[in-house]
């Protein structure tokens, strides 16, 4: 699928699996040094004695990383116009250096905007860790609405 995706192309129940990313200690520490410099995110030794039991990614890093996977996997070819917010973020499990992460996005619904050139797509994002068996374990979930441009030429039809 290389065609550009618009509001009209998203349907309730669709699921997009958006690639995998192996998270490394260096990137965990780099993000945390700038935005979340707690021992469990920047110091592998101190992290071992923390409640998380090892060097783990900042939850905000996981949000940002999911965004990147979303842009690379979907928004780069979609008419995304940003988002007014997130209903809920759940950080379910710590994510450790070396974990292989996979992002899935499920379309929960859509609604038109009062502005003719866009609509809202409600999505559930699930970030999972892939175990050795390939079985995904949910580590983070969030629900958000994304502003999506409408297909040119169809704007006045509906």
């Amino acid at each position, binding site marked *: 699928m290389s065609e550009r995706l618009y509001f009209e192309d998203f349907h309730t129940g669709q699921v997009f699996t958006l690639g995998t990313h192996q998270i490394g200690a260096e990137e965990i520490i780099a*993000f945390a040094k700038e935005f*979340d410099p707690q021992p*469990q995110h920047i110091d592998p030794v101190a992290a071992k004695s923390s409640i998380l039991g090892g060097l783990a990614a900042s*939850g*905000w890093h996981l949000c*940002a990383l999911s965004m990147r996977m979303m842009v690379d996997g979907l928004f780069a070819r979609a008419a995304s*116009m*940003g988002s007014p917010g*997130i209903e809920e973020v*759940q950080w379910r499990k710590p994510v450790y250096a070396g974990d292989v992460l996979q992002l899935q996005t499920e379309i929960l619904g859509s609604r038109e905007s009062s502005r003719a050139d866009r609509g809202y797509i409600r999505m559930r994002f699930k970030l999972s860790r892939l175990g050795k068996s390939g079985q995904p374990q949910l580590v983070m979930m969030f629900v958000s609405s994304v502003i999506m441009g409408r297909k040119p030429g169809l704007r006045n039809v509906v």
Partner: protein
Amino acid sequence: MWFEDIPLNVEVVLGSYTFTEENIVAFARQYDPQPFHIDRKAAEASIYGGLIASGWHTAAVWMKLMIASRRTAVASGAQNVQDNFVSPGVREIKWLKPVRPGTTLTYTNKGTAKLDWPTLPKFGLLEGINEARDGSGALYYSFINRVLIARRNPGTPG
């Protein structure tokens, strides 16, 4: 300071952060490379009419300022809460106004509720409302954070 000691409904100013074209583009290139975050020309043609910060950048800055504020409080003896905070998630992230280069936002936090967290009875869950405003008081960003804090007396309501 234990969970039981934390006062509710006291607003704390966490600090301020100035968003610049440089830090907006640097964050977005890595985590949210959509045209209206990384490309001035493309951003001018977008619905935003110019570059704006990734919402996750605005969100991550809250964590940065929260950590710095907490450390200042610990250093001054006003607070002895240690790092190693763990959060099960956040709610109601609202990106209310686009954050443009040159905008300085001041972030605040106010505890609003103390809840039990049955799966980790040694901890209590503190919820708070968080806001980011510019110098004129305009609200750009808000969300509800949730953090687990150790109880002095596990098992008793706090």
